[in-house]
């Protein structure tokens, strides 16, 4: 007889960044390690870990044409590899979930490595890099002016330390990462035509003020119009705003965001969110705005990010950082121009949103909310691969991990590798060992999942039920082959 004593969920074991080219000479191995979390362990261990990763990458490299070593599963850990830039590797090491059982009076650890979905955690790892790049630019570009490789390395280490020490703390509980995290999906605010056009055409601000290269508008946590920004940058921006800017509303006292070591003060109830270097003297009148890095035409270029808040709207303005930093006059001018229009727009959107909420009281568009539905109600998840939009009633943690992993494995990869093939139309039905049925349909770059839990269902029942849900819930997009 076995008895479950304790279950330990997946946790972060370590995370490191290395580049072999920084320490090619013998005795300089420590130079390869650009960042290692946790920091308080012996340097030798760090070097060993990096060396092992290097060895695995080299080894697998002999079997594949590219450096596409992705994951390594051991009994107790799962290692995920990601090489975003040539030579730079990010490695995420996870402790696999563990169940401690009492077996004939002896405690036995049962490692459940199979429960970890590589694709979900690879997406988490990828996002680690994306967030770093969004705020600090490409790894290779840092200190490009410096001749001395050592100096560059030190500079980079410092930056990585500064960023990841805080980022990893703020990283959400790894045990709860799911398909939504994997997709990096972006939620758009549904609006009526006129309001959408108004919001969209607010972007003509960029034409009025030519220094502004791009403007992105958010309403609460949803994006109103995304402009021409790439999806991954948009996701990073969204993550940044949700983590760092929006919380300031709730705790309006001097908010110290952990990510950037600056105190952010708001002008008033609304206006520009300005960043002051906390250690700078008050007399300094020119405050450098936040710099972010966007990929424009396959090149990562720095931009100043000005964040303007009006009621629930957050307007992000991007300025070319190659130009001198904006002066106070520009802020004033922009404020005078934006404030009345944006406040008015925000009010109109708010009334529209509340009207919508009244009309459909059952549908709560925000992902987290809603009463916890019981496990037997059918769940659905619709994803548009092109816009990365999703529509779901999956309450987080409402579905067992294995079902989530199955979906993650079924899901077409977010990376646009097989563009033409992705348009395939298919239907799949999967039954899991714990009596869940997953029906996947895929058509016109959209994926539809229905998750049913019914142990007695037959294939026919499941088909019928899935069809019913598709017809009932699928109102926004056209699924012509119902």
């Amino acid at each position, binding site marked *: 007889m076995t008895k479950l004593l304790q279950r330990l969920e997946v946790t972060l074991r370590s995370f490191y960044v290395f580049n072999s080219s920084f320490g090619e000479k013998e005795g300089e191995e420590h130079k390869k390690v650009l960042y290692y979390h946790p920091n308080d362990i012996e340097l030798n261990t760090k070097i060993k870990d990096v060396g092992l990763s290097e060895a695995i990458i080299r080894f697998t490299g002999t079997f594949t044409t590219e450096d596409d070593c992705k994951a390594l599963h051991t009994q107790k850990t799962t290692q995920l590899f990601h090489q975003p830039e040539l030579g730079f590797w990010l490695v995420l090491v996870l402790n696999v979930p563990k169940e401690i059982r009492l077996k004939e009076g002896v405690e036995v650890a049962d490692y459940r490595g199979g429960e970890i979905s590589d694709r979900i955690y690879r997406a988490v790892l990828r996002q680690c890099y994306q967030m770093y790049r969004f705020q600090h630019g490409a790894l290779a570009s840092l200190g490009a002016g410096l001749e001395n490789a050592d100096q560059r390395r030190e500079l980079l280490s410092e930056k990585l330390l500064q960023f990841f020490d805080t980022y990893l703390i703020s990283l959400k509980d790894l045990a709860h990462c799911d398909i939504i995290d994997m997709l990096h999906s972006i939620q758009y605010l549904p609006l009526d035509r006129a309001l959408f056009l108004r919001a969209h055409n607010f972007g*003509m601000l960029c034409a009025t003020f030519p220094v502004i290269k791009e403007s992105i508008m958010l309403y609460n946590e949803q994006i109103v119009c995304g402009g021409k920004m790439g999806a991954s940058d948009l996701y990073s921006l969204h993550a940044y705003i949700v983590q760092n800017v929006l919380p300031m509303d709730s705790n309006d006292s001097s908010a110290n965001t952990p990510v950037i070591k600056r105190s952010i003060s708001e002008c008033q109830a609304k206006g520009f969110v300005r960043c002051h270097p906390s250690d700078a003297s008050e007399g300094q009148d020119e405050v450098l705005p936040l710099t972010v890095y966007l990929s424009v035409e396959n090149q990562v270029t720095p931009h100043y990010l000005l964040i303007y808040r009006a009621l629930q709207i957050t307007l992000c303005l991007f300025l070319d950082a190659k130009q001198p930093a904006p002066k106070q006059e520009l802020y004033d001018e922009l404020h005078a121009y934006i404030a009345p229009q944006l406040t008015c727009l925000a009010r109109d959107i708010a009334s529209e949103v509340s009207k919508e909420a009244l009309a459909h009281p059952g549908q709560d568009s925000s992902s987290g909310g809603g009463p916890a539905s019981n496990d037997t109600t059918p769940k659905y998840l619709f994803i548009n691969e092109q816009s990365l939009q999703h529509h779901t009633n999956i309450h987080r943690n409402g579905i067992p991990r294995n079902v989530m992993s199955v979906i993650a494995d079924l899901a077409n990869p977010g990376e646009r590798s097989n563009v033409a093939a992705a348009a395939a*139309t298919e239907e799949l039905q999967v039954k899991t060992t714990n009596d869940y049925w997953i029906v996947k349909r895929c058509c016109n770059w959209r994926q539809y999942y229905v998750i049913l839990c019914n142990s007695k269902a037959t294939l026919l029942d499941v088909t019928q039920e899935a069809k019913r849900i598709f017809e009932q819930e699928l109102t926004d997009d056209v699924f012509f082959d119902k």
Partner: protein
Amino acid sequence: MDNSNGIHYIELSRNPIRFDAVSQLTNVFFDDSNKQIFAVRSGGATGVVVKGPVPNEDTVISFCMNDRGGAIRSIKFSPDNQILAVQRKENAVEFVCFQGEQPMLQDIITHQVKTMIHGFVWIHNREVALISNTGVEVYTVLPEKRQVRSVKSLSISIKWFAWCCDANVALLCTTEGNSLVPVLVKQKVITKLPKVDLASPSREVQESKVTLGQVYGVLAVLILQSNSSSGMMEVEVHLLNGPGLAPRKCHVLRLSLVGRFAINTVDNLIVVHHQATGTSLLFDISLTGEVIQDITYHAPITTGRSIKPFGLKLPSLSPDGQILQCELYSTHWVLFQPNIVIDAKLGCMWYLNLCIDPICNLISDRIRLTEFLLQRSSGKQVLLKVLGQLVDDQYKGTLLPVLETIFSRINKIYASWVQLELQNQTAQPSNVKTSTVKHTSPPIVLIEQLDMVQIFQRIARRPHTETILMLYLQSLNKFNIAAQEELSKMIISELIHNHSFDTLRRLVSYSMVLESKAVACFLLSHSDVDTAISQVAIDMLGKIQAHEIIIEVMLGQGKVIDALRLAKNSLGLDKVPARKFLEAAHKTNDDLIFHSVFRFFQMRNLKLYETLAFPKAEQCTEFIQHYNSTFPVDNSLKPQIS
């Protein structure tokens, strides 16, 4: 005078009507109803030449008539030129009947009254209204009976009158109380309208200060008077648009000048000529002005400018001729409504015309210019040109709010027209019999989507084009006008060019671009740029249920099974063309697909015709052979070639 300035917004018509100039022998009369000019030599005895209204020799009537004593005071043809009315005495009018173009001088009807005739006007081919000091009387002229019969009369003591032939309204100045009473005179009907409100009862208005004109289809009584405080001259505009055509003082035109003025109306603009400075001021009462107590005070549209100098080509033997520079604002000028200038000494009659191009340079405010041009009969081309410049070489990012307002002005008119057309199309059910189909005239300047698309096409693929198009789309949406095919395509191609797939996706999902097969196919043709486009295209096809195109697209992509499933669901089992799908399946070189498709049709045959065999009409023989050769199984199951 700033003649040298070079910019003129008013010109004289190029071909003036020439007539014999006033001299000792020749008297000249003008009938502003028929726009005919009469040159009467020696009281008619040596000839009368009638010209007008167009500068064309065909319209000349010349004849002689006896000088029956007494100088001619007024001479006017009936509208059909068949009866000539001549007033020689203050209490009599003669009617001369015409046969062709010659008078029948033996049949002159002389109509004598006991009152003093101020004047007469033809209101119909056989009806004439006499306005005398005791009232207005309408008579029918009966040439056969050589009779003039009174039809209708209105008794009112009259000091002077003014006539507007377009509106059939006479403005009477009464002897008692000096009030101005408009009277509608039509065939057999005289209607007295409410009098013009002159503010103070003692105010006396001189005949020379009053002009009757039609502005924007409404009769306007224009009264020149000096401002009580500044002493500058103003024009009061009383519009007959109140209840029961009651005149209301609606506008005041501030001239900011003193002296002698004359007023014309050109293309619904009020033109006030000032003789002393030799300039003409333009006013448009549809533009906004300062509003005080429901009265709009207008300033001139721009500073006063002179009429364009006119060179008159004199008849000469030498080929180059001689050019005479006409004196503008001459004392010999007489102005008639709406836009006629007559120089009696020179023997010229012109029409005043608006030069619309120079005005575009004079009105720097583009929004005001748009409002101005939208009301001008020749404004469309000029406005399109202005718009073209605004989005093209004059484009600046800061101009976008201006463009937004201009689009809004244009589309407001466009929307009202679209609405009217829609009503005309729908509001003719069978139960409405009596109501005549109202032929609605289009707005003066109607700028439709197609016009705008032509402008936008000139700036295709510029960085700012998408912004402008989206702005225009927003404006259309504001007025509930759906985007048509050309505009939709233009927007789509700009969005694709700028890689704004996100916006494109949302426009299609909101149905803000036209949903049609043509637009969807246009999208499909660009699907090589990004897969997002083909998704959007198929979405659109799905919305308009154009399944046959989706099937073609899928077949083109080699997705035969998907296409077949869709065809079965949308067309119905019996309508799926077997040959087409078998052919497509054959082309994929995938035996599994071919087998599936073939088996599908066999099962269909079984269902429809109760046999596995294909009907001959479907011409599937080659595919049956292919199937047999690819899957040679049990001979007994082999389908027969029918």
